[in-house]
């Protein structure tokens, strides 16, 4: 067990309104019009936000929410209805299975593990896209999971605010 885990504060339960707002904001960021290279490098913010809540609040955000946001992403991306839904469900499943282990680590140590989850998610999207036969993507399609893992600490830091206790418990 990592040493600093014992010194961590006990996270509070996040407000469900905050969770919904964070997911909608992630969706808006995903919709930003970007050019070629930025488009390829842009991490999937909806996936990252879902992952964060799956790991930290698995009772509030589960596979069903991942499915709903997957469908919404399918409409945004005008991909086949269900392609992202399948991938996100798979991703949430992995996150929920691993969440007890993942919260032991600091957010920087989580990043490489997030990378593997994101890569597997993209692999699901890639395989379903290939089976349908619409397009064969180049290798740099997978770059966005690298950027996703790199940006993970920032996202975890921002979203983690909601779980911090407002007053110092030791103050009294």
């Amino acid at each position, binding site marked *: 067990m990592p040493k600093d885990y014992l010194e961590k504060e006990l996270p509070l339960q996040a407000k469900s309104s905050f969770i919904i707002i964070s997911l909608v904001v992630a*969706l808006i960021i995903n919709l930003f*019009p970007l050019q070629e290279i930025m488009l390829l490098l842009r991490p999937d913010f909806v996936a990252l936000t879902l992952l964060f809540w799956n790991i930290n609040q698995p009772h509030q955000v589960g596979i069903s929410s991942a499915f709903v946001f997957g469908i919404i992403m399918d*409409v945004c991306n*005008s991909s086949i209805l*269900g392609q992202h*839904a399948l991938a996100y469900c798979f991703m949430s499943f992995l996150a929920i299975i691993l969440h007890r282990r993942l919260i032991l680590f600091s957010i920087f140590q989580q990043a490489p593990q997030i990378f593997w989850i994101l890569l597997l998610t993209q692999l699901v999207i890639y395989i379903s896209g290939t089976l*349908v036969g619409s397009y064969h993507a180049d290798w740099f399609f997978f770059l966005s999971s690298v950027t996703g893992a790199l940006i993970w600490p920032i996202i975890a830091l921002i979203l983690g605010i909601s779980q911090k206790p407002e007053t110092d418990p030791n103050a009294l």
Partner: protein
Amino acid sequence: MESVPQFFRTGPSPQARLFFFSLLSIFLMIADLRFESLHKVRQAIGAMLYPLQKIALAPTSLYDQVETLIEDLRLTKEINYLRQQYFLFQQQLSRLQILEEENTHLRRLLSAAKQTEVKSIMAEILYIPRDPFRRRIILNRGSSDGIEAGQVVVDDLGVIGQITQIFPWSAEVTLITDKNHAVPIQVARNGLRSVISGIGSNNELELRYLPINADIQVNDLLVTSGIGGIYPPGLPVARIDKIEHDRSYNFSRITCIPIAGVERNRHVLILSMPLSEPESTTKGNAIESKS
């Protein structure tokens, strides 16, 4: 479940949920692909997402507004220039009107069909979907502006694509570079007919199944042939870039570069042909092969 205390009740296990939702996703994918029965669902979700798209676009539109303010200073010069151009074109237009009248007269004499007038609507690119599997763009005009599926999208240089999906305030365009999209074309130099299709990569089109001895040269201009009824005839599509003759194949490998700025423009024109029946399929129209 009654015997389980409240705190431990978590519903079905993650495995069961994953199984259920995976099945549901796969079912949706099949329904979407094979039966194309989910247009209504897609439209409903698309309409709900429209405000979010507007918000996402806000920074860019703000930037545009600032840019136009700066541009205003330069406009006076441009107005003068355009005024001169206007007089020049006015004169040409009057000649054109005479020619058009003469043309209709001659056509009537020949009892040929009158060429249909093509209307156009200006549209702006709302955003580009981040799916690398498909070459699509979303425009800010939808069924409320009278846009229909099957209409052709062009810019000032040539064809960009075709409208394939309609939402109330936005529309999805399949670019000619999409892998599943084909345009019936004609070589402008000699009238050779064929079908050009995208290969899914960025700025490249492919002319498939032309025999090695076909009369085609590098730099030939390809225009729409009008066959198939979706694309009006005579719009520039592409220019031949490279011709590879490989003796071991029956067909030569011909790559072309699209003339229009398929992935560059912010503003595009949507053409509507009053007499054509728009096809609502997502695939283009692969009808005619070489003569």
